[in-house]
């Protein structure tokens, strides 16, 4: 069973009703058991939410995890086959040489790079033209209209 006033009771509990409406809702509350139950539920729910909001944050877990037998990453050893290690060293050397050489400017790089700042389009507002009149459409000589 439901009562059409239940939504009003929710607004009454939240203090959202105008004084006249609030008076009407209170009078209804006195006569309707369903709405009284609804009011009690709303109040209980609000109390729970307030209690949850005011509860302190749980303490952060600052204690480090113990018992791990693995060594830290900077103390671990990595075994690599000699050819792989040689290839890695050659690749690193090539990268180093490339980064030392000055980059060649492209042909069209004469102008300094410019920062393009995109402005968001302004919100359209035609209200200054709107005086509540009816839209109008008509035919005109082109020159006549352009000269106006």
């Amino acid at each position, binding site marked *: 069973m439901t009562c059409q006033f239940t939504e009003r009771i929710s607004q009454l509990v939240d203090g959202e009703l105008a004084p006249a409406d609030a008076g009407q809702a209170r009078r209804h509350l006195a006569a309707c058991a369903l709405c009284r139950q609804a009011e009690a539920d709303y109040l209980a729910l609000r109390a729970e939410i307030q209690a949850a909001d005011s509860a302190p944050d749980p303490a952060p877990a600052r204690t480090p995890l113990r018992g791990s037998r693995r060594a830290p990453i900077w103390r671990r050893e990595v075994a690599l086959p000699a050819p792989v290690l040689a290839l890695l060293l050659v690749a690193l050397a090539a990268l180093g040489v490339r980064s030392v050489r000055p980059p060649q400017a492209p042909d069209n790089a004469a102008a300094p790079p410019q920062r393009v700042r995109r402005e968001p*389009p*302004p*919100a*359209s*507002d*035609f*209200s*200054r*033209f*709107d*005086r*509540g*009149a*009816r*839209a*109008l*459409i*008509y*035919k*005109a*000589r*082109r*020159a006549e*209209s352009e000269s*106006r």
Partner: protein
Amino acid sequence: MKTLVRIALVLLLCLPLMASDLKPDAGLKRIRFQISAVEERGEARQIVSQALVEGPPGTDFNIHLRDARFKMTAKFLTDLVTPDKLRVRARLDTRRLHGYSERRLPLYEEDAQGESFELGFDEQIVLLPFGRGGDDQLQIEISPARSDESVLSPSGEVRPLAIRILKQSPGGAISVEASRVPHRFRLEAALFDRGREVAREAAECLIEEAREVRLGPLALALTVDRYARDRPRDQVAISFDASRAGETIARGWAGVAGLGSEMNYELGDGLTLKFSIRLAPGETAGR
């Protein structure tokens, strides 16, 4: 044998003529519409947005304008009626936020109006979305012109429509869209009384314009409301009113069918109405 050769020659000569009925005239030029939204303040004019719509004769376009409180859709159907004249049918729909109800629901003021113009190429249509009055005025000017480009490309295909935005309105508040669908149709209607044909009539009709047809005892007002591209056949949507001896027996009846296929309606008292809609001679689907 000589006769057969002659017939074959005549047929060969007629082929290009028959083909020219199916395609638009190769020399026909496209039509261009310049659509400019202009803000007028006293003597000063400032173009807010500008777009060009270009396509074959019969190109239609819509202009939309909207802000937080006002919305307008202006629909334009165009036809080249003579080499120097266009027929433009305009329909304006506006919606203005009027306020809020006690229950905080929005209340709108809506308006719809239609106008038809014979427009020369030295004329233009002026649309005032907010009406006239005051120093500040927004007006949309629609100016037609003949394009230098012909309707057909060198390969014989119909060139596609083109829209060029020359200046975009702030926030995209004004937008333009264009389309090309057939405008002229041939309607064939027949009335049957208990299975026996009692009247038959054919008439040409324009899209979105009511056409009155007398069919024996019946007076019909039929409108081709919409044309939709479809496979295997394009579709037409129609609506009609029918009356007999001043008494309405059908009001706002409607239907959708493939181009050329038959639509049947039982009117009661043993009367059956049959329609079929085809493209009018010279009209192209423009695929």
